[in-house]
């Protein structure tokens, strides 16, 4: 689980780090959506440049981004790899039966640049803001209490449950699971054993949740709304001129991108 490595750089001191969380969430969120609207090839360079400049401002190391992009990048590559060879009629290059087509190439580059730019913004947000602060900012922006509580509790117990599963899998392996001779097809026995593994994991988590609930009740959970109000209150620092400046700039860029996109698609 990779939250720890995701939070390795959250305590930096760049302008993006000092950007108040609520404003940062709104600014980067709107910009991500503006990037997602892009359909015109001419806008690809500007959005990639905006993402790169913001990443530069955040002073996160490049390795952080390249490491994070590797796994989702493989997935998107698998999705678009065929496009340049199947879509469109304008052939740019031909090798025997294999033809590289312009329309397909454009569609693939559109998807890849949009994907990398949006993900870069996402990693700027996550790389410069602690997870709990993000949830707090989302609460401040109107995330329902039940969802905020569920997210925080699930986050709190995720690692414990993952450790539980790892221990259970290790003891299964020690008792011979996975060492049977491999046969083709699904083995009913294997599926049954894995179903019991997941069942036991659910049971343990359920029983633990009963203990957690009792402990939370004893500490006043569910009585009155006082604790929730404090959770939601983040201080949008009015003096953070840089934060407001960044937000206005980012929102203006988002509006420009959407306006150019609409103008070009109508024209």
């Amino acid at each position, binding site marked *: 689980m990779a939250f720890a490595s995701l939070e390795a750089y959250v305590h930096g001191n760049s302008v993006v780090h000092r950007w108040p969380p609520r404003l940062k969430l709104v600014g980067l969120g709107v910009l991500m959506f503006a990037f997602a609207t892009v359909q015109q090839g001419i806008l690809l360079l500007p959005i990639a440049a905006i993402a790169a400049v913001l990443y530069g401002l955040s002073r996160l190391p490049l390795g952080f981004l390249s490491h994070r992009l590797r*796994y989702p990048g493989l997935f998107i590559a698998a999705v678009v790899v065929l496009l340049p060879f199947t879509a469109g009629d304008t052939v740019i290059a031909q090798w025997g039966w294999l033809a590289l087509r312009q329309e397909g190439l454009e569609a693939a580059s559109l998807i890849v640049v949009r994907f990398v730019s949006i993900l870069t913004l996402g990693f700027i947000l996550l790389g410069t803001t602690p997870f709990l602060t993000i949830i707090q900012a989302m609460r401040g922006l109107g995330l329902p209490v039940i969802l905020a509580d569920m997210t925080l509790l*699930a986050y709190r117990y995720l690692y414990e449950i993952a450790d539980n599963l790892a221990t259970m899998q290790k003891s299964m392996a020690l008792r011979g699971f996975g060492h049977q001779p491999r046969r083709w097809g699904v083995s009913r026995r294997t599926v049954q054993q894995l179903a019991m593994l997941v069942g036991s994991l*659910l049971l343990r988590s359920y029983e633990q949740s009963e203990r957690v609930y009792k402990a939370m009740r004893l500490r006043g959970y569910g009585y009155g709304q006082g604790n929730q109000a404090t959770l939601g209150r983040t201080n949008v620092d009015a003096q953070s001129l840089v934060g407001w400046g960044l937000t206005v700039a980012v929102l203006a860029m988002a509006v420009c991108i959407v306006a150019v996109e609409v103008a070009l698609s109508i024209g």
Partner: protein
Amino acid sequence: MHIPDGLIPAQVCAAGYAIAGLTTWYSLRQMNRKPDPTAEIPKASLLTAAFFVASSIYIPVPPVSVHLILNGLLGVVLGYFAFPAILIGLFFQALMIGHGGLTTLGVNAAMMGIPALVAYHLFNLRQTLGRALPDRVALGGFAFLGGALGLGLSTLIFLVLVITTIPAGFDVDTERSIILALSLAHIPLMLIEGSFTTLLVLFLHRVKPELLEG
């Protein structure tokens, strides 16, 4: 089976968020009708985390291995809490491993979560349609339906969304046949997911029946 950022148009992302928002609102309303909704929150949260962790388990089907989606099972066990649970699980996945995405969170949540709610209602049909059947047969049979159709519906939505929004230059008939062919290819996975759900529900029924009352 997640839609990544940048793959589908922004209108589809926005529609996804709208549908996910409405479904979340409806689920929260149903949850608040429970006699003590706060008591359900820790249970739903820890089970959300457990499902998230369990979705990393692979089933060996030599020569390959398949990983489970478990959205049907989530619906069967968590009821209306399944939708927020899936939303949170996908949020974690987008953050931790970059699987899925933040702009496509709504689409992915609707794609996985609504079939989970369908699975929940299918599983509940055992109390009316399955009354004539022996207890274990009704329980196992409707769990199978929930698990298999939960995955089946999600796969269908995924394929329709991806194939119709990527400009691959196919005409409507070709798109339709690709969707049909790929959906048929997923039938064995539906059978595995359905059987897994049945075995797990029968196990829980034997050792902790109150977990299935959600």
